[in-house]
C-alpha cells in the first residue's frame, strides 16, 4: 500500500493547484505579455523605429560593454574564491563566505551610495582622483564597479557548495601523479564544475544587464552617454514614450527569457536549482 501523505485529497489538490496557477498567471505571466503588448501597441513598424533610435542603441551598447567587463571579472573572482574556500581549511572561512554574500542583502541604493563615498568628489579617493584627472563616477568605470559589487557573489555562490561536495581527492591524486597545479585545475577541476560555472555566469550576466538602483546613483543618468538599458527604460517611461520604454524593456525581457531557458537546461544537467541568494 502506498504511504498516505498530507494533501493528497482530490479537493485539496485541485484547490491548491488552481489558486497557485491563477495567482502566478496574474502576477507573473501577465506582466510578460503586457511588455510585448505595450511595445507593439503602435505596430511592428513603430516598435522597430523606437528600438533603433540612437539613444536606445547607445544604451544597449553601454549595457553590453558593462557586462563584457563585469561578468568575466566576477567569474575569475568566483573561481578564485570558491577554490580557496572549498579546497582549503583556514580560520575565517565562514566569515569570508558571509562577506562575499553580503551584496545579496544590501539594497542596491546603499551600494550606489557606498561607491559614491569611495570615488565621488566627496569620497575617500575623490580629491586624489580629481587631482589626477581620473573620472570614475558618472562614467563607465563607476557603472562597472557598481555592477561588480551587486554581482560579486553570483559565481562564487554557485561553485562553493559544489567544490565542497566534490572533495579534494581527485585533485590530490592529480598532483601526486605529477601534474602541475594549473594542469590539475584545467583537466580535473574545471570539467567537474563547468555546468555550475556556466549557471553562475548566466545569472551574473542577467543581473548586470538588469541592475538599476546602484547604477542609477553612480551613472549620473546622462541621456545617450551614461544610460544603461534599464535606466533608459525609466527615462523613456518618464518622457511618456510608452512604446519606446516597452520596446527597450522587451530587449531586457529577451535576455531574461534566454536566462530562464539556459537555467532550465542546466538544471536538467543536474545543476542545483535555486534563486539568487537562496
Amino acid at each position, binding site marked *: 500500500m502506498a*504511504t498516505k*501523505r*498530507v*494533501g493528497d485529497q482530490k479537493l*485539496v489538490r485541485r484547490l*491548491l*493547484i488552481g*489558486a497557485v496557477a491563477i495567482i*502566478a498567471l496574474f*502576477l*507573473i505571466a501577465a*506582466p*510578460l505579455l*503586457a*511588455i510585448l503588448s505595450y511595445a507593439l501597441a503602435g505596430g511592428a513598424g513603430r516598435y522597430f523605429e523606437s528600438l533603433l533610435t540612437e539613444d536606445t542603441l547607445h544604451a544597449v551598447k553601454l549595457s553590453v560593454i558593462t557586462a563584457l567587463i563585469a561578468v568575466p571579472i566576477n567569474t575569475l573572482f568566483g573561481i578564485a*574564491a570558491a577554490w*580557496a*574556500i572549498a*579546497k*582549503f581549511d583556514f580560520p575565517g572561512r565562514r566569515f*569570508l563566505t558571509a*562577506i*562575499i554574500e553580503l551584496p545579496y*542583502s*544590501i*539594497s*542596491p*541604493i*546603499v551600494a*550606489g*551610495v557606498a561607491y*559614491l*563615498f*569611495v570615488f*565621488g568628489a566627496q*569620497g*575617500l579617493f575623490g580629491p586624489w582622483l580629481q587631482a589626477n584627472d581620473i573620472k570614475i563616477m558618472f562614467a563607465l568605470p563607476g557603472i562597472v564597479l557598481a555592477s561588480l*559589487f551587486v554581482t560579486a557573489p553570483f559565481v562564487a555562490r554557485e561553485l562553493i557548495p559544489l567544490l565542497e561536495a566534490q572533495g579534494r581527492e581527485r585533485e*590530490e591524486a592529480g*598532483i601526486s601523479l605529477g601534474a602541475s*597545479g594549473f594542469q*590539475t585545475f584545467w583537466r580535473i577541476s574545471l570539467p567537474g564544475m563547468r555546468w555550475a560555472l556556466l549557471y553562475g555566469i548566466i545569472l551574473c550576466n542577467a543581473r548586470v544587464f538588469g*541592475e*538599476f*538602483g546602484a547604477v542609477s*546613483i553612480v551613472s549620473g543618468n546622462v541621456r545617450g552617454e551614461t544610460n544603461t538599458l*534599464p*535606466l533608459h*527604460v*525609466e527615462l523613456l*517611461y518618464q518622457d511618456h514614450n510608452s512604446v519606446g520604454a516597452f520596446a527597450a*524593456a522587451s530587449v*531586457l525581457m529577451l535576455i531574461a527569457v534566454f536566462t530562464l531557458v539556459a*537555467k532550465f537546461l542546466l538544471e536538467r544537467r543536474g545543476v542545483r*536549482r*535555486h*534563486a*539568487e*541568494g*537562496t
Partner: protein
Amino acid sequence: MPQRRILPGLPLSLGVTLVYVTLIIALPVAAVLLKAMSLSLGEFWNIVTSPRALSTYRITILCALAATLFNAIFGFAFAWVLVRYDFPGKRLLDTLVDVPFALPTAVAGVTLTALFAKNGWFGAPLASIGIEVAYTPLGIIIAMIFTSLPFIVRTVQPVLEELDPEFEDAASCLGAGDLDTMRRVILPLLMPALLAGISFAFVRCLGEFGAIIFIAGNQPLSTEITSLLAFIRVEEFDYPGAAAIATVMLLASLTILILTSLAQSWYGRHLTRS
C-alpha cells in the same frame, strides 16, 4: 594528525579573494559608515529621526511585512504544489517562479505600473470596484510581492522534496489528521528553510528600489520608501543625509542577517535536542 597540504594555489586564490573582497565589498561599505561617522551624533540622530525619514521606515517596513506574509503563504503553497502534485503545465509554472528574478526590477516596475494604472488591464476593473493600486501603498506591496516571491519558493522547495514520506505515514497511523500532521510534523521540519526564505525575502523587500518607485506614487510622508529617500538625498547633493539614511538601511540588513543566523543555529540545536 595534522595533514600536509597537497593542493596548490592557496596563496594565489586566497590572495585574489581577499584583495577583491576588500576593495569591491568591504571598502565601499566602510566608506558609508565613515561618512556617517563624520556627522556628530546629534546631527545623525536628527537626520535619521526626521518625520520624513520615520515615515519612510514605517511605510517600507509595513509594506515589506505585508508582502512577506503574503509570500510566506503563497510561496509555501507554490513550492508545495510543485513538489507534491503532478499536473499539465507544471514545468511552465516552475519556470515562471524565476521570472521575477530574471526580469530587471525597472522593467517589472514600469510594467506593473502600466498594468495597475487606472487605464491598465488590472487597474481598470479594480478601479470600477473602488480599489486603487498604482500610486498607493497597495502598489508598493504588489511590487514587493513580485520581486521577493522566488526566494521563499526556492528555499522551501528543495527541503520539501527531501521530506521523508515515513513521517507523514507514521503521523497518520497514529491517528493525526492532515492539519495536525501539517502543524506538528511538516512545518517544524520545514521551519529552518522557511525562516531563511522569509528573512531573505523581507530583507530584499526593505532594500528594493527599481520595482517600487514607478508604482509607489512617491509622496513624502505617505508613499515614499526609504531607498528612494536615500536616492533623493544624493540627487540633492545632501551627502551627509544620504550617508545617514544608507547607514540605517545597512544596519537593518546586517541586524536581520545576524538574527536569522542566530535563530537558525538555535533552532538547529533545539531540533536535535528534542
